[in-house]
């Protein structure tokens, strides 16, 4: 019997219309958990190194997390993985809502799409019934509009729908896919459009077996209650109206201008009223006692939802105020555009126009007002009309296609992907490592476990560590106690901190937990506590799956998945030279220091000087199939002789003794 998972993947060949239900190997669950972990294995094994994102051989994988459809609260984030046309690397994308648990109840851990449908189609899954249906009538429809139409068409208001909008249909690289007011960005939207799949509608009524149901339910009831009561969980931006942090510190426009002192009490009051005068309510994802999404009804516009920093990106890129974001966000969401990267593309185009690199010939009748310009650009981009066809490929590609000095204006991408618009003074070593080597494309998908700033006095530090429940190893306590200045931190500590930050995200994204109650929140102590961390996830996993997990074993799962994702990208050409944060991310840079730090991090990870997991590392992590392929294809010689990775988290001695006995 399989616990906490269905043990079945739904494999759909869109070219041939072939649908198969394939039993998965339980051993993979123990090694790669599920979600993004098992998806990485499938991509490594099945997507060839030279496979283009828009090749029929590219896979588009929707993975429910290992803990979806169990009583574990806030387990609802679906991982969507594919090869991204923008980066030509593995796309890492997540969405909240209800889709993952519904997939599991329908009987599937994953939906794996390959090939291309001959015409625009949607996939209808109702337990064992799986059909590829015509979607001609949905062409050009908005994302949530499509969900609504399908619920009516299928006469089932409980069906869960994920859909692309016009942007995805036209393979805009910054297209997202949307499921109600949740969306998955960073790569899979255009691939879904390329495969001519407008939407997937899923409905399921089956049970998921739990290995130790009563014990798990008891723990989950307690965690649910704790999350509900804790100020340390959920999205503070849903309730805290003081958003001076982003507005005073992040760079506006095309990641260009810091506006220190922009925020004021008057502004806060005005924006607060703007929000609450138009907000219907705040909503939650499945089985989560937090309400992070703000649902806004703006006059004359479709109702839309946003969370977190998503409310700032458009107006900050356009040098406008919150009302502008409310004007544009609902429309952008119906088109299915990622609200993190897209505004940067528009701001980039505006800069090029002001610099004379794009002219009235490229942008006929280009309006004067920056807000009007954003609407103008949006219409061009989602239709790939005129200059929109070039801008639709994102800043990095567009800069190179436009040429004529445009490359200079691409100053905020890493690995061809738009980064958060942050420009700071002094280099922060762990952040250097996270941005340089991050394979999740955005810093917000890597940071969160170790505090971002030191505390000034020893007394405050002592008080902090007493309540620091997420900390997985004493070495992090030592680093924190000795930490005086933000940027002054040893290489050893930077490597270990980066490693821990990564660990929590790689685990969350495989078991399906939301970062707001887990990986983003380890950095806090007290405040009511956090939902999940290295010290309680192993027990929860054991009770759910019936597989014995302990901290050491779970940590090794993280290392394995991290290395496998890296291997997918190494296979596609990712090397040391690509691991560079934007040159102006920090004003003060020191190339020698950075390269030295990168050396230390690679060594810590058991990687070669080129950032490739070495044979010894791969074998230590049971990834022999990767090392065999790498040696065969010449990516590794096998003679690199790199010591295996440093493992910071082990079991407490009593567990080790027990295991030995």
């Amino acid at each position, binding site marked *: 019997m399989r616990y906490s998972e269905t043990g079945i993947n739904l494999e759909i060949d869109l070219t041939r219309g072939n649908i198969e239900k394939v039993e998965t190997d339980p051993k993979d669950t123990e090694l790669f958990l599920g979600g993004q972990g098992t998806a990485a294995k499938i991509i490594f094994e099945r997507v060839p190194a030279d496979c283009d994102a828009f090749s029929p051989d590219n896979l588009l994988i929707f993975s429910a997390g290992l803990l979806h459809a*169990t009583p574990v609260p806030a387990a609802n984030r679906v991982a969507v993985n594919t090869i991204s046309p923008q980066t030509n690397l593995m796309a890492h994308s997540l969405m909240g809502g209800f889709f993952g648990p519904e997939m599991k109840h329908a009987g599937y851990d994953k939906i794996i799409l390959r090939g291309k449908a001959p015409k625009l189609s949607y996939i209808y899954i109702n337990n064992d019934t799986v059909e590829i249906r015509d979607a001609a009538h949905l062409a050009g429809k908005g994302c949530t509009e499509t969900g609504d139409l399908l619920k009516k068409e299928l006469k089932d208001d*409980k069906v869960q729908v994920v859909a692309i909008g016009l942007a995805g249909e036209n393979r805009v690289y910054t297209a997202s896919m949307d499921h109600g007011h949740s969306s998955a960005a960073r790569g899979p939207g255009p691939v879904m459009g390329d495969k001519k799949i407008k939407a997937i509608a899923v409905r399921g009524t*089956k049970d998921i077996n739990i290995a130790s149901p009563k014990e798990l339910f008891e723990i989950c009831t307690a965690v649910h209650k704790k999350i509900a009561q804790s100020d340390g969980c959920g999205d503070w931006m849903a309730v805290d109206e003081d958003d001076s942090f982003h507005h005073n510190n992040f760079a506006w426009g095309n990641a260009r201008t810091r506006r220190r002192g922009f925020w004021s009490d008057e502004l806060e009051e005005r924006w607060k009223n703007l929000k609450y005068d138009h907000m219907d309510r705040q*909503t939650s994802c499945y089985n989560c*006692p937090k309400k992070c999404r703000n649902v806004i009804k703006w006059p004359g516009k479709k109702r839309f939802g946003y969370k977190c920093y998503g409310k700032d990106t458009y107006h900050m890129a356009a040098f406008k105020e919150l009302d502008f974001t409310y004007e544009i966000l609902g429309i952008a969401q119906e088109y299915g555009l990622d609200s993190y990267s897209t505004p940067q593309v528009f701001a980039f185009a505006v800069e090029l126009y002001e610099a004379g690199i794009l002219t009235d010939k490229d942008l006929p009748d280009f309006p004067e007002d920056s807000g009007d310009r954003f609407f103008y650009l949006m219409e061009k981009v989602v239709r790939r009309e005129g200059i929109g066809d070039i801008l639709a490929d994102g800043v990095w590609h567009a800069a190179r296609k436009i040429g004529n000095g445009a490359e200079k204006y691409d100053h905020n991408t890493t690995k061809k992907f738009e980064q958060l618009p942050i420009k700071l003074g002094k280099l922060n070593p762990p952040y250097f490592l996270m941005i340089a080597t991050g394979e999740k494309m955005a810093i917000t998908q890597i940071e969160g476990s170790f505090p971002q700033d030191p505390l000034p006095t020893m007394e405050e530090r002592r008080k902090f560590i007493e309540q620091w429940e997420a900390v997985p190893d004493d070495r992090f306590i030592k680093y924190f106690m000795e930490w005086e200045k933000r940027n002054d931190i040893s290489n050893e500590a930077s490597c270990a901190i980066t490693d821990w930050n990564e660990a929590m995200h790689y685990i969350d994204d495989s078991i399906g937990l939301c970062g707001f109650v887990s990986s983003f929140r380890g950095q806090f102590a007290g405040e009511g506590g956090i939902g999940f961390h290295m010290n309680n996830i192993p027990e929860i996993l054991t009770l759910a799956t019936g597989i014995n997990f302990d901290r050491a074993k779970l940590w090794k799962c993280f290392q394995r998945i991290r290395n496998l994702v890296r291997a997918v990208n190494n296979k596609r050409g990712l090397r040391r030279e690509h691991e560079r944060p934007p040159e102006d991310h920090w004003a003060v840079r020191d190339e020698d220091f950075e390269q030295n730090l990168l050396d230390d991090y690679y060594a810590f990870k058991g990687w070669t000087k080129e950032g490739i997991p070495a044979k010894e590392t791969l074998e230590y992590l049971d990834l022999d199939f990767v090392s065999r392929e790498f040696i065969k294809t010449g990516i590794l010689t096998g003679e690199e002789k790199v010591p295996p990775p440093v493992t910071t988290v082990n079991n407490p001695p009593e567990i080790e003794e027990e295991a030995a006995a």
Partner: protein
Amino acid sequence: MMPDKKTKIIKEIKVNINNCTGCRSCEMACSAFHAVPKYSSINPNRARIRVFMDELRDQYVPIRAGGYIQAECNGRNLYVIDEKEYSECAFCPASCPSRDYFKEPDSGLPLKCDMCEDYPPLEKPMCVDACKFEALTYEEREEEVLIDDTGHHDMEAAFKLLVKRYGKKKVMETFSRMSGE
């Protein structure tokens, strides 16, 4: 003969639709409690409370399973509350043929809320306990009710049913025959 008056505890779940966030924790907790063995399965499709949800129209209505009815209604009302339209079904607790709410997914048998009757009794029903936003709150109040232990009420109900099925005449004939026996 007049029936006696007695006090009875009325259990009430109050639903505040403005407070509902659509998390569906109530569905999860309900299905866990009613699973056999208890907590062995978490499946909202077996829950006796469902959140009627429409993100586009901002409708979030937790509804609790009531009785089973054989036929669907032959007309529907539409309610407008705070400029939002709610169909009559949004508030209806019936397990009926017009939608698949409150039916066991395997057998199709109707489900009905039992306020989590248990021994020892729970402090409050599971769905209320799971709701962290006070969309669901629980109240118990004492009410004086007429307690009819004469049996008249039950018999009347039985006769009404028989009359409906066989007609007054046949029932009276049968009753006369029985009284003569």
